[in-house]
Structures are given as structure tokens and as C-alpha cells.
């Protein structure tokens, strides 16, 4: 049997071509926005931007040091979290609730509020049976915009720290936040939402629709069921920013596999572009702002190599299918948990993209992937999500890896560890290690606890090594703020709601504050002009070295766990009995 479907390969190749063509224009545009230069949307957005500053009493020329920047960020983010929490608890008495859905339980409200406020969007509930239209728009759509904007402020501040010389200030948090929303997220989300409606994504505030089934079916109790209840809702406005902001929380339980969220192969193509475009283009923004675009392209190349290699393995495994099913007179790739309209190409490309960014939307059920295919989704998250990672968070985590790579290479070849004219010293190393390792430590500790106590193991759906993968996946997803799931795991228990919530908080805020602290310590440093002793960070050697560092840190931390989960299961699945 052929190892691939030619149309899938064409789709994947065209997808990456379109994506890479977007990097320069979008990345250059974002650089203009954050440097306060005139841009395409200035005539429309500048007056609105000014108005916002006037109402909130913000002096856009006044910048702050990193501590003040971090203080505003944390205060704003935690206020958002409390707001979401209150909306969820009060859902029953709030408007726009035609189905009369009751309030969220306390552990679920905590988990969901933390999850959406940290850009994780892990969901221990199904939207159609749990969340009202008020919750979906006022609380969740709002956080879909704000959390990626916050991620962007951190990376922009870090870039300024690298660029600036001997100053304390790294920017104005409110200005960076506002610009990110007004010039980048809102306009793209608006256009994308309208496009999605044109393809069949719904957008209304009607009550659920009853449809008279063409052929009534017999229920389990022997009763005849003649109606299907079809949920409605403001999906398109939610969907576009869910993807663009690498949020990933679905309007419906089935997320982007649901035909009302992702009705056709074309919407699937566009949705994948939405979640990869900003994180990848930020590498060009970075290069532009540090005055050397080759530095940005170098990081992008390292990201793409890991992403495409992972996708290749995943595609091969899924296309080869499941021998235990083939034995039963069935032919074809692994379609369990996948939609016919996307096929293997559109499903694996989405799965690789959503776990390589921090999006976490799914258009197929990762839990039902083959061991190696599902193992690759797990692997991409365990690399701390840097190929290219979430909006903002991906690049600042990657810069943590870059600095570690520069430092280690410097030690090995006896050159001064410096990056883009800034000396790498103890403080930067501390911060980089915190950025890179926080999520990994959190994954290992929480997974360890979950596997030791019955509150953790009783939620597992699939027996054997697959059960280990389910638990590992849950904490990898939470701590890296991804939000996708091996959804067989019953995560709506007090144990998982609280431990996953804790993992999300650690994985989001510890690296973000460390990145800001590093921005502060880099900004006050002098510029060191490059000399013969400087390690070049924009050539192929360095790109290769960076890939090795990412793989060593990410893979070695988890090799034993990956061996006991996906790899053993692969041997069981393919073993001859």
C-alpha cells in the first residue's frame, strides 16, 4: 500500500507556502504597530486608540520598568480571571440563556476561569450543554482577545530589553496591550469571522432548533426518538479569535471537529492559517525590531524543521492506520475520531499545528490517534510549545532556549556568551532556565501525583499504556497552556479541576514574569559590539545547535514517560500474536 495520498501532500505543501508568504508582511506590520509607527490601519484605529487612553487616563509616552510592567499585567490578568469566574457562577441569573442552563459548579468554574485567563482553554465541560450565550460571548470571547494580547506584550517588552541600551524602561503595558488588540487581533478576527459565516459557521442568538428526523431512531429504552435538537449560538465571532489568539477553547464539545465550527476543508485550511500566522510572523517582527531580520529567520527555520519533521511522523503513522482494525476486513488509514471532510492530511496538519502552537483547538480526537501519531502531539507540547508556540508566549519561551544555546555553545568553544550585543550573565541564565523548565517540572510532578492516587487514576478511560498517555497529556496540555486533550480522561473531577488549574497558573505566569525580569536586566546593560569572539546566531550551524538544544531539553526530560506510554503501545498494536 502507498505510504501517502498525493492530494494530502499537495495540501500540506501549499499550506506551508501560504503560511511562509504571510510571515514577512504580517511580521513587518506588527513591528510597525509596536514601534508606534504609522501603518495601514492608523487612519481608522488611531482615533479609537487615543480615545481609550483618554478614558482610562493613560499617558502613552510614559514607559515603566519591568516590575511596574509585570504588576499591571498580573493585576489585569487576575481581574479578568475573577470576572470570568463570577460570570460562570452567576450564569443561571444572567441574560442570553435561552436554554436556561444552570451555573457552573465551583471546581469547574475555578478550572474554566483559570483556563481561559491563562490562554489554555482546557475545557472540562461541553459548551452546548453547559455554557450560555452570555458566558460564551461576554466572558469567553473577551478572554480570547485579552490573553493573546497579554502574551504579545511580554515578547514585545523582551525584544525592547534586547534592543535598548542602559535604560530601565521596557515599555508601557497598557499601550502594548491596546495596540495588540486594536491593530492586530480585532481586525483579523472580524474579517475571519465573516468569512467563516459565508462557509456555514453559525452566528445567532436563537434558541436551539428542533429538527424532525428523516428516519426516527429507537433509543436504548426502546422508545422512538423522532427529533434532533440542534444547538445554535454566536459561534463565528468566537471561533475566529479562538484560533487567531491560539486560545483553542471550543464553542461546542467537539471543538473544531464540529461542523458548525469548521464546516468544510476550506474553513479548515483557513483556521490552521489563523493559529499559526501570528506566532510564526512574530519571528520576523523580532528580526525587524532588533535590526537584523536574519536573526528572526534563523529562529523561524529551527521552528519549521521540528514542526515539519513531527508532522511527517504523525502523517505516516495515521496514514498507515491500525493493523488491529485492518485484520477485520477493513481497509484504510486511521479514521477513528477524524472527520471525512478533512481526511488524514487536514486532520494531522491541524493536530501538529495546534499542539506546536498553544492553540489546543482540535479537529480530530487525539486520544484515538495511533500511538506514534498521538505521541507526536504529546511530544510537540512537551517541547514547551516553541515551534512556534502561542501568540507571544511561544517566542519568549524560544528565546529562553536561544539564550541557553548561546551560553552552552559559548562554554564549549570558549567564546563570550553574548546575544545580539548583550552579555549573557547569571541573571539571564536563571531566567532562561525558569522560562524553559517550569512547565516540564509541573508536568512531571502533577502526573506523578495523579498516577499514585485513585482520584487520579479513576478518571482514565483507556486501559494499559494508553492510560498513562492520557494523564501525561492532560498535564502537558495544562502546564503548557495548550488546552487540547486526550479527551477520554474524565477531567471534570475536583482533583483534576484543581491540579490542572494550578499547572496552568504556574505554566503561564512564572515564565511570563521571568521573561519580563530578563527584559529588565537586558535593558540596563551596555551594548557590546560584535567581535571575532562573538558566536554568530544567524547561520546554519547555530540553527542546528538550537534544534538540538530544544530536543535535548524537551525530549530527555520526558523520554522515560514517552517510552512507557506511546512507544510500548505502538509495540502492542503492531505486534504479531
Amino acid at each position: 500500500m502507498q505510504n501517502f495520498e498525493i492530494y494530502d501532500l499537495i495540501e500540506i505543501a501549499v499550506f506551508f507556502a501560504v503560511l511562509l508568504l504571510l510571515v514577512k508582511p504580517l511580521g513587518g506590520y506588527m513591528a510597525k504597530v509596536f514601534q508606534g509607527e504609522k501603518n495601514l490601519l492608523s487612519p481608522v484605529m488611531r482615533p479609537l486608540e487615543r480615545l481609550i487612553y483618554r478614558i482610562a487616563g493613560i499617558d502613552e509616552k510614559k514607559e515603566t520598568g519591568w516590575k511596574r510592567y509585570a504588576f499591571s499585567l498580573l493585576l489585569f490578568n487576575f481581574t479578568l480571571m475573577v470576572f470570568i469566574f463570577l460570570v460562570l457562577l452567576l450564569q443561571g441569573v444572567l441574560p442570553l440563556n435561552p436554554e436556561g442552563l444552570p451555573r457552573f459548579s465551583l471546581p469547574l468554574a475555578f478550572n474554566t476561569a483559570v483556563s481561559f485567563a491563562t490562554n489554555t482553554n482546557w475545557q472540562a465541560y461541553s459548551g452546548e450543554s453547559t455554557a450560555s450565550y452570555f458566558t460564551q460571548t461576554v466572558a469567553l470571547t473577551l478572554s480570547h482577545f485579552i490573553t493573546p494580547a497579554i502574551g504579545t506584550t511580554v515578547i514585545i517588552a523582551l525584544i525592547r530589553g534586547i534592543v535598548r541600551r542602559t535604560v530601565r524602561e521596557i515599555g508601557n503595558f497598557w499601550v502594548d496591550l491596546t495596540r495588540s488588540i486594536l491593530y492586530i487581533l480585532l481586525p483579523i478576527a472580524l474579517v475571519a469571522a465573516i468569512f467563516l459565516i459565508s462557509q456555514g459557521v453559525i452566528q445567532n442568538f436563537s434558541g436551539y432548533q428542533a429538527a424532525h428526523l428523516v428516519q426516527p431512531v429507537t433509543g436504548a429504552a426502546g422508545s422512538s426518538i423522532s427529533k434532533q435538537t440542534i444547538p445554535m449560538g454566536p459561534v463565528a465571532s468566537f471561533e475566529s479569535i479562538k484560533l487567531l489568539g491560539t486560545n483553542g477553547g471550543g464553542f461546542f464539545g467537539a471543538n473544531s471537529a464540529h461542523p458548525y465550527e469548521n464546516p468544510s476543508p476550506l474553513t479548515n485550511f483557513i483556521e490552521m492559517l489563523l493559529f499559526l500566522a501570528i506566532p510564526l510572523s512574530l519571528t520576523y517582527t523580532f528580526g525587524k525590531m532588533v535590526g537584523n531580520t536574519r536573526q528572526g529567520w534563523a529562529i523561524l527555520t529551527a521552528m519549521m524543521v521540528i514542526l515539519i519533521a513531527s508532522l511527517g511522523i504523525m502523517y505516516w503513522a495515521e496514514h498507515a492506520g491500525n493493523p488491529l482494525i485492518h485484520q477485520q476486513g477493513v481497509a484504510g488509514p486511521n479514521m477513528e475520531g477524524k472527520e471525512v471532510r478533512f481526511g488524514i492530511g487536514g486532520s494531522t496538519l491541524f493536530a501538529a499545528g495546534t499542539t506546536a502552537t498553544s492553540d489546543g483547538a482540535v479537529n480530530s480526537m487525539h486520544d484515538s490517534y495511533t500511538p506514534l501519531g498521538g505521541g507526536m502531539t504529546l511530544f510537540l507540547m512537551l517541547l514547551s510549545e516553541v515551534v512556534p508556540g502561542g501568540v507571544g508566549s511561544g517566542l519568549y519561551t524560544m528565546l529562553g532556549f536561544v539564550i541557553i544555546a548561546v551560553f552552552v555553545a559559548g562554554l564549549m568553544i570558549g567564546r563570550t556568551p553574548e546575544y545580539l550585543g548583550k552579555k549573557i550573565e547569571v541573571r539571564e541564565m536563571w531566567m532562561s532556565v525558569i522560562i524553559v523548565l517550569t512547565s516540564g517540572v509541573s508536568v512531571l510532578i502533577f502526573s506523578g501525583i495523579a498516577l499514585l492516587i485513585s482520584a487520579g487514576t479513576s478518571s482514565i478511560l483507556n486501559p494499559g499504556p494508553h492510560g498513562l498517555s492520557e494523564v501525561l497529556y492532560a498535564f502537558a496540555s495544562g502546564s503548557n497552556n495548550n488546552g487540547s486533550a486526550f479527551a477520554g480522561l474524565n477531567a471534570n473531577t475536583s482533583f483534576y479541576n484543581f491540579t490542572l488549574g494550578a499547572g496552568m497558573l504556574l505554566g503561564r505566569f512564572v515564565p511570563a514574569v521571568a521573561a519580563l525580569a530578563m527584559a529588565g536586566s537586558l535593558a540596563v546593560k551596555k551594548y557590546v559590539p560584535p567581535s571575532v569572539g562573538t558566536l554568530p546566531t544567524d547561520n546554519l550551524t547555530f540553527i542546528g545547535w538550537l534544534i538540538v538544544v530544544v530536543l535535548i531539553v524537551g525530549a530527555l526530560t520526558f523520554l522515560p514517560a514517552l517510552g512507557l506510554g506511546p512507544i510500548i503501545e505502538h509495540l502492542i498494536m503492531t505486534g504479531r500474536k
Partner: protein
Amino acid sequence: MKLREIKRVLLMLGIFLVLLAVIYPAVVTLVGRVAFPGKEAGSLIQKHGRVVGSSLIGQQFTSPGYFWPRPSAAASTLLGGSMPYDPLASGGSNLGPTNPKLVSPDPAVGEVSGAVRALRNSGVSGPLPIDLVTSSGSGLDPDITVEAARAQAARVAAARHMPLATVEQLIDAHTDSRWLGFIGTRRVNVLELNLALDAS
């Protein structure tokens, strides 16, 4: 200073609340209603003045005279029993690739072998297309592959006393090709095909 910052946080949250959670969804809803009526409301299909389903949401069919959809894991207990293709419980089976509930050769245990047995009993022969015996990610998949439709054509034709050629023509007429020739899968919408069968 701290107090002023708290006030600013609340003001900014309020501003973005109005802009992003009120104005933005309202604009999208209005544009959708004016520019794409019907699509924003769920692509519902009407027959004799009543809604019989949505062209995007699958339905369960079990009678031999209809094309069958894929197995569905969207079965909730909300309606007092398990009902496949229940849009109130969208989702996949989440069964792993070695889970006996998925792959056991015993039809009473394994999802795949259960579906294989039902298809074989209905008279479908030859190698079975995999989409017909596995459940989708949403549990609401409206489509099957062209191969899965062709595999059922003889059964449908026999049950309806229709010429096989007519049934195959209907399949061709309801086949969606790949977008631009290479994006997605060639597929058949089961509900639309079955409604066309009833109408012919």
C-alpha cells in the same frame, strides 16, 4: 498609586468588554444576517414547511433503503436513552487504538467489529471503507467517502426496487469534490443523498 492602577484595570476591562464582547459580536451577527442569511442560522433543510435537519449535521439512518452514516459517539443520556448523532453531546469515542472497546474482534465488545457485522448482515461485501466502521471526531459527521457510498449502493437499490445505475447517478450528483482539486476529501453528504432518494 496602587489605587489608581486598580481603577485603570477596571476601566480598561470595561472598555474592552464593550468593544470585544458587545460591539464585535453584534457587528459580526448583523453582517452575517444581511450577507449570508440561512448560513448564519445553521444551513437548515426544510421539507413540507418543517425543519428536517441541517446539511452540516449528520443524522442516524438504519433502514436498508437509506445510505448509512458513520457510527456516532455523540450519544447522550439527556434524551432518556442513547441516541446517535445527538448534537447536544458532540464528541468522539476517544477510544485508544488498542482499546478492546474499539478493536476487539468480538462484535459484542468492539465498535469496529460491531459495525462490520451490521454492514455484512445488510449485504455489503468486499473490503469495507474505514470511515463506515469508525466514529468521527464530532459524532455529527455529515459525510461519508465516495467509496463508502458506493459500497452501499446495491443494498439501497435492492431495498427500493430502483435500478442500481439510478442510485449510482444520485451518488455522483451529490459528491463534493476537493476544494481547488486538492484540499480535503471527495465525499458524499448522507442526509442530502437520502432526501434525494426519497424525492426520486
